[in-house]
């Protein structure tokens, strides 16, 4: 392989258990989002749009759909004979095999991949975040500071800072302190879990961490504090755009709704940095003669005969005659049969809400209704 300046390691093995039925059969990075995408599209598109052409995708939990979806990487312009997208699942050696025990351990187990590519820098990414970022700018920042490690941060509201890993910096963005979920935060810069390491330092640190019996092999808990203690040059890179980690059903729903409205927080139509996806060819959406569609994102292959308001109607989804869908997300292939009402709900892929069923509630104090993939909701089951 020819030498690369920077390669990416994309952590995509997480289960995302707090997403409940949405991740029952697929890994979180493979969960559908935004009408036609899967969550991992965002990180992969960022790589492609940032000119990073070698990406190792570390998979583990329920990888079938994810692997199938990634394919050769061609959907993200990442199919190259020398580089491109590599799927890196846990593997066995002469001395046995093990699951990835933590974020750092997952990378440690693939140090061979990093060494083989011999880059100067390694970008560590999470496959379950929604944002658009030019990593090249972050790399420029890293080089300008002559840093050993750069951590992408974003300012969060002070009252929420205690929920995040908080970085305290000097006026030159140099990191002085890292505190995981501080009770009394002295900074509001939250780590986004996006790191650029000098490759040599990463390899050395992870090799040491691997034999440390007390380590949990986690970047946030172990690696960053260790490098800070060792007096390494750690810097932040401040990001001020749309960024979400959809950890829960509620945040998944809220983030989906953020895509709607006249001026949404996230611009899916940015021609400079398009979000790419591996979508099969479907005919354009069909809107029937008596349909009403108001403030919706509508994917190809979908059909709307009834009323859809402030909702996401994903690829191949159907809203039947006289049906009403409001403040909801229909994942690909979901079908709302005639006369059914679906309010503040997430319908899993290829799920069905039968005729005249009423699902969900406008009451904001109630939880968002969620139907798993392939589930059929009949009358009396709602």
């Amino acid at each position, binding site marked *: 392989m020819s030498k690369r300046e920077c390669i990416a390691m994309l952590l995509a093995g997480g289960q995302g258990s707090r997403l409940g039925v949405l991740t029952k059969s697929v890994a979180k990075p493979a969960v559908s989002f935004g009408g036609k995408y899967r969550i991992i599209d965002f990180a992969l598109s960022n790589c492609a749009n940032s000119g990073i052409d070698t990406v190792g995708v570390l998979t583990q939990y329920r990888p079938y759909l994810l692997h199938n979806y990634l394919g050769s990487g061609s959907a993200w312009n990442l199919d190259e004979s020398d580089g491109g997208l590599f799927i890196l699942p846990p593997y066995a050696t002469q001395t046995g095999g093990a699951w990835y025990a933590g974020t750092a351990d997952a990378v440690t187990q693939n140090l061979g991949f990093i060494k083989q590519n011999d880059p100067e820098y390694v970008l560590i990414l999470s496959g379950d975040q929604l944002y658009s970022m030019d990593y090249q700018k972050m790399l420029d920042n890293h080089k300008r500071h002559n840093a050993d490690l750069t951590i992408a941060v974003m300012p969060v509201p002070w009252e929420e800072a205690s929920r995040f890993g908080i970085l305290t910096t000097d006026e030159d963005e140099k990191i002085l302190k890292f505190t995981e979920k501080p009770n009394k935060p002295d900074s509001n810069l939250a780590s986004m879990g996006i790191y650029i390491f000098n490759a040599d330092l990463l390899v050395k640190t992870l090799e040491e961490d691997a034999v440390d019996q007390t380590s949990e092999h986690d970047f946030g808990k172990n690696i960053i504090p260790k490098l800070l203690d060792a007096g390494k040059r750690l810097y932040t890179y401040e990001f001020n755009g749309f960024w979400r980690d959809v950890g829960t059903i509620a945040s998944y729903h809220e983030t989906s709704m953020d895509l709607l409205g006249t001026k949404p927080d996230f611009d899916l139509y940015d021609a400079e940095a398009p979000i790419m996806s591996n979508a099969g*060819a479907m005919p*354009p959406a069909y809107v029937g003669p008596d*349909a009403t569609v108001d*403030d919706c994102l*509508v994917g190809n292959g979908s059909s709307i005969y009834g009323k859809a308001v402030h909702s996401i109607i994903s690829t191949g989804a159907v809203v039947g005659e006289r049906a009403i869908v409001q403040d909801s997300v229909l994942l690909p292939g979901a079908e709302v049969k005639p006369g059914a009402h679906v309010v503040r709900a997430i319908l899993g892929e290829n799920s069905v809400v039968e005729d005249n069923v009423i699902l969900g509630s406008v009451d904001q104090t109630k939880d968002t209704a969620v139907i798993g993939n392939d589930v059929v909701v009949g009358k009396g089951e709602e």
Partner: protein
Amino acid sequence: MEKLLGVITANYSTKYPSVLSEARPAASVPFLGRYRVVDFALSNMVNAGIKTVGTIMPYNYRSLIDHIGSGRDWDLNRKKGGLFILPGSAFGTSRTGSRFLLRDLEYNKVFLKRSEAEYVVLSSASFVYNMDLTKLIDAHAESGADITVLTQAAKAKDVDVTGFKVDGTRVHGVKHGVEFGDVAFLDCFVIGREFLLQLLDWYEQTDYLDLFEAMAADYERVNVQVYDYEGYVAPIFNKDTYFKSNMDMLDPKITAELFPADRRIRTKAHDNAPAKFETGSRVSNARVSGGCRIKGTVSNSVLGRNVIVETGAVVSNAIVMQSCVIKTGARVENAIVDRNNVVPAGTELRGTPESLLIKEKATD
């Protein structure tokens, strides 16, 4: 050994110098917002398990190459076989009425000779249908015919469709144009590869003719059988059939037949966001492609990718192709608006149902 070889004659234009063919060959005319006409011939072949497809190029091949590329979207980027870009014989000319010019096949004899396939399936890129071609191929193999042509009883008069004179299921003549009820040729046929090469030798002296014209005196000795297809078919030869076939796509029964989940029509992949229907938009009976953003009113229309319909704009009974912008208060009615057009605020592009207005492609 692969049993089947495909050839698509994508190098013909229609004789109407209109928005639909002047700027681009018939094969790369947009259809239903996101497709090109050639997608149907290519997909039908690939869906029938044909893994080697030669595509004969028109002289103005830029748009077609741009669309099909390496054939990846049809799984035709293969180590062995896959998509072959073949030259057309007559650069710069388009002989109307012919879709299987002998000279084009003669010119690509090497492609046919190098293959080890038993059968060759040939198709033009002038029709929209989604058919399981294995049925045609099986029927051909079973009947022992020399050639089996795909046909359908003509639904309307069309001077550009080739007709067959038929006795039972056997062809004994060919004619230009069809009337209602005639046996219309869907420009697709299957033939033994060896026999096709033999025919090319027979008719070497008259290679300026279409294969089916050249055989005129030989239908008694060459056994040409028809295979009747009953499904949805749209010929795309002039602006009226073009408009009508696009409007047919507003009938969900037809689109269900044309785009079944288990036999996809493949096309070039694009990274368009889902369509956005803004508050205040009013859309009824319409097909809306990815990347569209709609604030105005759209009815009985087909919108291509990335079309913007601004507040107060009205699109009615129209085809609006990709990347057009219909500005505030503008009105588009009974029209075909080719790609990249900006319809200025407050202006009108208005035809009548009998006489559609055509707005030609604007430059990128």
